[in-house]
């Protein structure tokens, strides 16, 4: 191994009062890999993302991005190259689609207050470049038609894609996606899968949280299973799918029932976040 892994979490623990939401969870992500993170509700998946991105300060443990330790501050983490989306879509609702992506460009833009005030030639150049890049990304996720629409007016699936475009705008080396297909119909889900592959093909490593196990097993290079804050199994999709502990802890129920649960989850979160 010549180069460091894209992302490495070492024994991350997170305690809320008396609740041990994460217990020594480690994860390693090679460059250009897609890793799936699955587990029942309340397993600590989102908490893990929050610890990685500095939204929470882990009780113990370390997070390294490309071999260097990440600072414990969301803004610094994003600057360092770790971007994310949110399980319950959190766009800037009364900004336009394009402006949302421009916010993602924030960390890569140089203009200070003075140049923002004066709008000199250098400012104009930077602004033009940022808009160009933002439009490229909207094109990449398939939203260029609606760049002047307010993000709150987008349909649900488009809002998820916009969140991805906004995260990509920060030029990340690693992208964390928290349930990117929740609330999507099968066509949209398939489009999302293709999108994630295309993101990987641009050299970005991806971690995906998803309840839809079929989706995960056909998308990811490796899969990590989290149950009640503990790392249960880590391996290739085949290894994980066959593991009796996983079947017991997570897939213990007959397939139809799992599907029903998934349905319920996706619908529940869809209502909460989109207000549609």
């Amino acid at each position, binding site marked *: 191994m010549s180069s460091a892994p894209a992302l490495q979490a070492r024994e991350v623990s997170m305690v809320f009062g008396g609740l041990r939401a994460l217990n020594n969870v480690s994860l390693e992500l090679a460059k250009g890999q897609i890793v799936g993170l699955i587990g029942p509700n309340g397993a600590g998946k*989102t*908490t893990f993302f*929050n610890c990685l*991105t500095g*939204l929470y300060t882990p009780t113990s443990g370390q997070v390294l991005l490309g071999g260097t330790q990440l600072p414990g*501050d*969301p*803004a610094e983490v*994003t*600057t360092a190259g770790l971007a*994310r989306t*949110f*399980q*319950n879509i*959190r766009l*800037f*609702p*009364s*900004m*336009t689609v394009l*402006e949302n992506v*421009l*916010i*993602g460009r*924030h*960390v890569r*833009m140089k*203009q200070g*207050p003075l140049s*923002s*005030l*004066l*709008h000199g030639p250098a*400012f104009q150049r*930077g*602004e033009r470049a*940022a808009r160009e890049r933002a439009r490229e990304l909207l094109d990449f996720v398939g939203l260029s038609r609606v760049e002047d629409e*307010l993000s*709150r*007016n987008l349909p649900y699936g488009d809002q998820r894609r916009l969140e991805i475009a*906004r995260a990509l705008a*920060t030029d990340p080396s690693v992208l964390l996606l928290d349930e990117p297909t929740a609330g999507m119909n099968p066509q949209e889900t398939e489009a999302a899968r293709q999108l994630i592959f295309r993101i990987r093909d641009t050299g970005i490593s991806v971690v995906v949280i998803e309840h839809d196990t079929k989706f995960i097993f056909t998308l990811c290079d490796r899969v990590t299973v989290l149950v009640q804050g503990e790392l249960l199994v880590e391996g290739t999709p085949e290894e994980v799918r066959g593991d009796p502990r996983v079947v017991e802890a997570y897939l213990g129920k007959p397939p139809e029932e799992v599907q029903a649960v998934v349905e319920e989850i996706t619908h529940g*979160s869809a*209502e*909460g*976040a989109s*207000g549609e």
Partner: protein
Amino acid sequence: MSEVSTAGRTGLFRPLSTAGAVATVLGALLPWATFVFNEGPYPAKATLQFFDAPFALSGFRLHLMLFGLAALVVGFTRLPGRGRVLRALGWGVLAVSAVNTVFLISNGGGFGAVSASDGAFAFGCYVGLAGGALLVADNWHASAEPLPRWKFSLPLWAAWLVLLVSFGAVLLLVAATLTAGGLGGAADPYAGPVFLSFLGAAGGLLGGLHGTGLLSWIGELSEKHRLFSVLVLLLCALGLPLTSAGNEYWMTVAANIGVYAATAIGLNIVVGLAGLLDLGYVAFMGIGAFVAANLSGAAASALGIHVPFLLAAVIAAVIAGIFGVIVGSPTLRVRGDYLAIVTLAFGEIFRRAAQNNIGGLTGGANAIPNIPQVELFGLEFNNPVTIGGLQLPGGVLYYFLIVLLVALTMVAFGNLKNSRIGRAWIAIREDEDVARAMGIRTGKAKILAFLTGATLAGLAGAVFAHKTATVSYESFQFLESVTLLAAVILGGMGTIPGAVLGAALLFVLPEKLREFSDYRLLLFGLALVLIMRFRPQGLVPDRHRRAELVAEDVELPAAPKEATA
């Protein structure tokens, strides 16, 4: 939105609206008062008899007549946005009728003034009110109709011409509004109602024009030709002394409005863009004013040094900015309500300190009087000037200076809003956690918002000090902070015309309504409650906020607090 009336698009004939329009015309022609008041005849010949002199209409009755005729014509056309136009005209008629009715009743000693007495009758007000009410009621659901969008594009010269004409019209409207009702006080006992009535008519007119989609179109046009618009607007503002408002009195009023408008734009950065509630903002203006006063060489100032005006203004802005940073620092830790309390406390501390003449810098209760006038390029700013053969009134130079100040603040606001830092502010307003997660240093950005706002206020304060010649702590109290905040909210958060319009309204009203000065706060409160109820996005809403609030009528968005679901 299920009970939406589709009347706006179907059927050419609208019996109720037509009845309202006819009633409005009739109301304009009927007498409004049964007798001539002791103070002299009510303006617009309110005691005029039915059809005695239909072509001698003036003042509010002329407005009513025009509105009625307009509604009549519009009611019979397929004008897009017809319902919106009719409703706006209806509101205008209602406002004009209500203002005059209330004043006639209160000033004429009861309903006798507006009914029948001593063989005279005066039912004009009821007919007018009914006409307005009919127009409004019949078009109550007009907002369900889409606002017409004018799509055709113009060649450059035509676009410029449209902008030139529009801004010229704005200038005339501003001049007419400013002078409506005259100076007030003993000279003209009816100044208050005449002004309010005019305001109602102007509002109805603008609302009607907006209903046709014209104003939005002009707005888009001016955004497309931004530089040209700014220049023309500046030119128009500089042209105000040439209109009917061109005397020393109105120049002073306009200059005062300008100072507060500039301050309100600064506050709009803090509140409208970054979403930080600042309840002590006027203190920064006060700091600027006291700094400038102390550097002006005024006899009462502690320092007794005279610094040239421009330098003094810069120093005042910088010192105010430093205080902005100091007050802004706690915003790193506190949010929302707590921030409001911190700023409120700062405003109070400033006022107390100034009242007690801290460090001998503020003159305490004696204030700092006799601040010398500004002298720039050999011009003394209190004197009238003659340019070519043109005689301009005294105070006009201050007015020009303040127009420049407002223009400067506008450019600063506009540039910042459309930049990396402005977007960051808006992101913080919308969702601070996510803004952080997107890499925005929220603490730095918030302090920068405070710094910018305070600097602009300090600059305005420096001009204010010289303009009014006396700086006293009484000018910078909680009420002023609240009024500025009200101006921003009333006009429309996050927009420039909004802040200017709000400041103009809130600072010109007390000037016009001297006899009601005891009720000033009450009127503010009432106006704010009404605005918040009927137009929560403000008079000139931000493109984004407008859509947001309109959408909120339909559905309330879930506002998730945690990053987890």
